[in-house]
């Protein structure tokens, strides 16, 4: 597949994502066939273009029309305008934990009050992690302390493994450190990834 076709696929996927967003209030039983039909429409139209070019793809998507018009035809009310609270929520969830726990709680309250995100996203953002980055850093710090304090006791464990311990003080230590760092990175990266996702969904919804 050529790179221009990849670019065309991307244009199509962006359009489909906008339709998805516009119709998100429909139950899946109604939403899915509409998306399938629109995908098939695009497939059929593209099959007739040989070779296709970007202008044709843009024209095709333009002819399909504005996602909001498709939303209106589906009998849904116009999308509500999103306020500053939707913009703020992901940031509060990430960093609010540093302001005791109140900031995080406020972020969660705004999140669940909003119509921008699906329940799935809300659950994810609430569970990863309660307390946000502050909690992750606290847990990471705790983990580091534990792994450091556990190591010597493992070394002096049984009499049988005492030789192992003295013969390889470096590698197991290094392994421990790498595992710990990996854990810390995941611990901290997870809430960032989740909230970046929230922010992207927000921006798509106001686009």
């Amino acid at each position, binding site marked *: 597949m050529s790179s221009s076709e990849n670019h065309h696929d991307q244009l199509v996927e962006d359009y489909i994502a906008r*339709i998805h967003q516009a*119709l998100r209030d429909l139950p899946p039983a*109604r939403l899915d*066939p*509409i998306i*399938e*039909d*629109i995908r*098939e*429409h695009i*497939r*059929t*139209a593209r*099959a007739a273009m040989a070779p296709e070019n970007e202008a044709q793809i843009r024209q095709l998507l*333009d*002819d*399909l*029309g*504005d*996602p909001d*018009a*498709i*939303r209106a*035809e*589906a*009998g849904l009310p116009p999308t509500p305008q999103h306020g500053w609270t939707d913009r703020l929520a992901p940031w509060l969830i990430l960093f609010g934990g540093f302001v005791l726990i109140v900031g995080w709680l406020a972020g969660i309250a705004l999140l669940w009050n909003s119509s921008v995100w699906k329940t799935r996203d809300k659950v994810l953002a609430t569970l990863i992690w309660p307390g946000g980055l502050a909690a992750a850093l606290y847990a990471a710090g705790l983990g580091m302390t534990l792994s450091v304090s556990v190591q010597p006791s493992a070394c002096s464990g049984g009499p049988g493994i005492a030789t192992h311990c003295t013969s390889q003080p470096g590698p197991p230590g290094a392994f421990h450190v790498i595992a710990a760092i990996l854990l810390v990175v995941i611990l901290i990266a997870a809430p960032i990834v989740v909230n970046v996702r929230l922010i992207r969904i927000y921006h798509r919804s106001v686009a």
Partner: protein
Amino acid sequence: MLDNNEASWLGQLRRGVADGCVLALLEHQERYGFDLAKTLSHAQVIAGEGTIYPLLSRLRRDGLVDTVWRESTEGPPRRYYALTSAGTDALAQFRAQWTQFTRAVNELMDNAKEVSSE
């Protein structure tokens, strides 16, 4: 596109008759979405071609059309739309009302002077 924001009488009229037009197109043959979208947008009954799909979804929910999968010469099977018996009834009703309505409006337009309330 101008039509997308059209709040005029024409836009409202189009929305009102689009359902009836879809039913009419399906009266003698099954059609797939792309075909319906092209035909109706060419006839300027719908503005954006994509609006046909939520419309079809609504007709399907209301039991006026049904879907069948048909093999296609190019690519995967396609979803075809067909009229149900309830759809056939709705079409007959729409056709009668539309004929009566357009006749009355035409008469008003052509000879407003002679039209009386009797």
